[in-house]
């Protein structure tokens, strides 16, 4: 078969892919630089330059949402990685009931975020939730898990950690199982302690899995909306309002489509920039692991 014939067969797939990915992308981009109106039975986008972006720069609520998002992402992904690594190391050992624990630890990841949000909202309820009931029985005061502006964001992070640590376990466990036992045995024969084996052998060899897990989880965490929407609606005040939730409120609740698109695109740029920075910072680790 000639090369051009092969390409011809691929063309429909490429066209469909372009239509499904590039078109919505460009459409949203056009909205972010335009004003949306409905005229004569059609959605009309009038380009207005960078007016929406100028509004974004002076929008205190946008900057607040950006900071909230960055805090949630960094805190939750950091904790998820540490916990995930610890549990993956435990599950990698020959312990009794290993299969049971492996399956149990993965369960939260399989739940819909909406269900997780409702479950934690009930558990963290100020007057009727089991958490505060437990604290009361121990003689402590109650905590406004979702109603105290100083605590609410950590409750969201806690919920995210509960749901997504299993994802880290899954990838890191696969990474750990891919490390040849010979390397570890050789290090032990040379007299390395358990800690040194971890630091100088296991951790570097786990770098590709770690980088993949942190990257994938971070990209997902940047888009957090469902858990927040159910648990706090972005409140109290705006302390848990993420960029996605803000974009949703503006675009779909207030129906300000153009500015909603601008906020969505700003999130895209934030994720893109963070990804590039992450890969830049981890380039050395990737190189070492390859060597």
């Amino acid at each position, binding site marked *: 078969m000639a090369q051009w014939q092969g390409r011809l067969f691929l063309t429909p797939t490429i066209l469909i892919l372009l239509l499904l990915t590039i078109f919505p992308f460009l459409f949203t981009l056009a909205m972010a630089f335009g004003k949306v109106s*409905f005229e004569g*039975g*059609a*959605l009309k986008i009038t380009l207005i330059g960078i007016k929406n972006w100028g509004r974004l720069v002076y929008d205190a*609520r946008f900057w607040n949402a950006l900071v909230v998002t960055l805090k949630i992402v960094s805190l939750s992904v950091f904790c998820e990685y540490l916990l995930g690594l610890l549990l993956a190391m435990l599950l990698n050992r020959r312990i009794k009931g290993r299969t049971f624990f492996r399956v149990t630890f993965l369960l939260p990841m399989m739940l819909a975020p909406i269900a997780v949000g409702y479950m934690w909202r009930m558990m963290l*309820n*100020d*007057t009727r939730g089991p958490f505060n009931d437990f604290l009361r029985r121990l003689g402590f005061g*109650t905590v*406004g898990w*979702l*109603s105290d*502006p100083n605590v*609410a964001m950590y409750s969201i992070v806690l919920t995210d950690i509960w749901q997504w640590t299993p994802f880290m376990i899954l990838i890191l466990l696969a990474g750990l199982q891919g490390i040849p036992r010979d390397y570890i045995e050789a290090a032990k024969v040379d007299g390395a302690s358990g800690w040194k084996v971890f630091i100088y052998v296991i951790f570097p060899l786990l770098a590709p899995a770690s980088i993949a897990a942190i990257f994938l989880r971070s990209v997902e965490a940047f888009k957090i909306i469902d858990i927040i*929407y159910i648990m*706090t*609606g*972005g*409140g*109290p*005040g*705006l*302390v848990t*309002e993420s960029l996605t*939730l803000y974009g*949703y*409120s*503006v675009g*779909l*609740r*207030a*129906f*300000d489509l153009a500015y909603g698109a601008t906020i969505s695109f700003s999130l895209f740029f934030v994720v893109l920039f963070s990804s590039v920075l992450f890969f830049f910072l981890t380039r050395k680790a990737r190189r070492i692991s390859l060597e």
Partner: protein
Amino acid sequence: MRKLVVVTLLVGIAVLGVGVFGTGRKFEGVTITVFTQPPPFIAKPVQMFAPDWERMTGGKVKLITAPWAELYPKMYSSFALGAHLYDIVIFPAAWLPDFAGAGFLAPLDDFIAADPRIAWEDILPVYRERIVTWGGKVFAVPVDGDCHIFYYRKDALENPEYQAKFEEKYGYPLPVPPRTWKEVRDIAEFFNGWDWDGDGRPEYGVVEARRKDDQAYWTFFSRAAGYVSIPGQPGGLFFDPETMEPLINSPGHVKALEDYIEIMKFGVPGMINMDSGEIRTVFAAGEAAMAIDWGDIGVLSEVGEESMVKGKVGYAILPGSTTVWDYKKGEWAKFDEPNQAPYLAFGGWVAAIDVKSPYLEAAYDFISFLASPENSYRSVTTPETGFNPYRVSHFERLSGWIGFGFGPKAAETYLKAIQDTIAHPNVQPDLRIPGGARYFEALDAELALAAAGAKSAQEALDAVAKAWERITEELGRENQLKAYRLSLGLPVE
């Protein structure tokens, strides 16, 4: 043999007759599409009455639903992009200006005039004359009557021992029901944090929706209306009807927001994160002495299987204030009696028809069937329909309410509170202008900041006023002013 021929002929004629003249059913072969939110609430009456209508008319009803957040975008895009996916749309009355103003909805005046079944005069005037009209024409039929009313625990407020203690502490008799927000504040403080119903657990003063991205702004306007709405002076609640200048940061609104923030000290813990659904269960669980809500707390309290307060709830119109901000004079006006201004928060659900629907007549016929006095009475007295009374006849017949689970006294006082609200001379309709959702969204964020203590009442409302000005400029001041005046029933040029 002759008998057989005659019978055969008669059967033949009958079959031919059916074939030629049809079954006599008016909308045979017609399928109308109804779009609203998923059942049970709001969609349930459509499911209840569609089979009967289909049997009577031969038509078919196809119900399509979408979650609350997707209703507006899907309706708007169906109209604006010419898709015309739905014949009937059932939506909150506040969206009517957006849809009717853009010419998306069919005027219904002629249908209504020719339809005795709809019993138009039986619908309370505020709904038939204001809520469903735009520019002097009727564009929808009310199917639900929504307004905020005030709830209180009779066993607490009417307890002689507590009344004596209250008077001793505050220097005036405990008013039942309270008629000013100042009295509400004192009562909430008095009943906060101790076991006044003897169940071994502490109760609290009040429960009101404060959750961001929910319905808090309706509670705010319920509290603000009495401070800013002078009888006979339209427009004090939202904008100056002469200039479209926002009045949201007037001293009256600021005072209302200060109350809104202060009363949280006497509220059920975690109230800042509670939506309307949660405050209903909290009140029905017996945790609060007072509440503000639509008719739903009444239903849940009197009918709910797990209600701890059945027969213990009192109902009243929203309290007000003896000092009211006069935006025209720029000063506080003093009243001898409290100025109460009940608020038609949300305004209820209405049913309208896409102007481009090929089945206008069938669509109207189904709406008329759904909203007829008999069927609407069944809707408002059936659990989980989400529909509240809006016809004179809904208030006159207690049998349905008692069958619903209300006690006779509870039914009477509950209906009286709603009727007094709707028929009040100073009743305030909700904001009904294009882009209403944008104005409310901007307010919602600032209310959340003020409630969380991140901004003062004045700072928050100043920010709202600024945002409202920007929205008005973006949408066109002249158009918005015209729409606002229309919504208030004021003349436009």
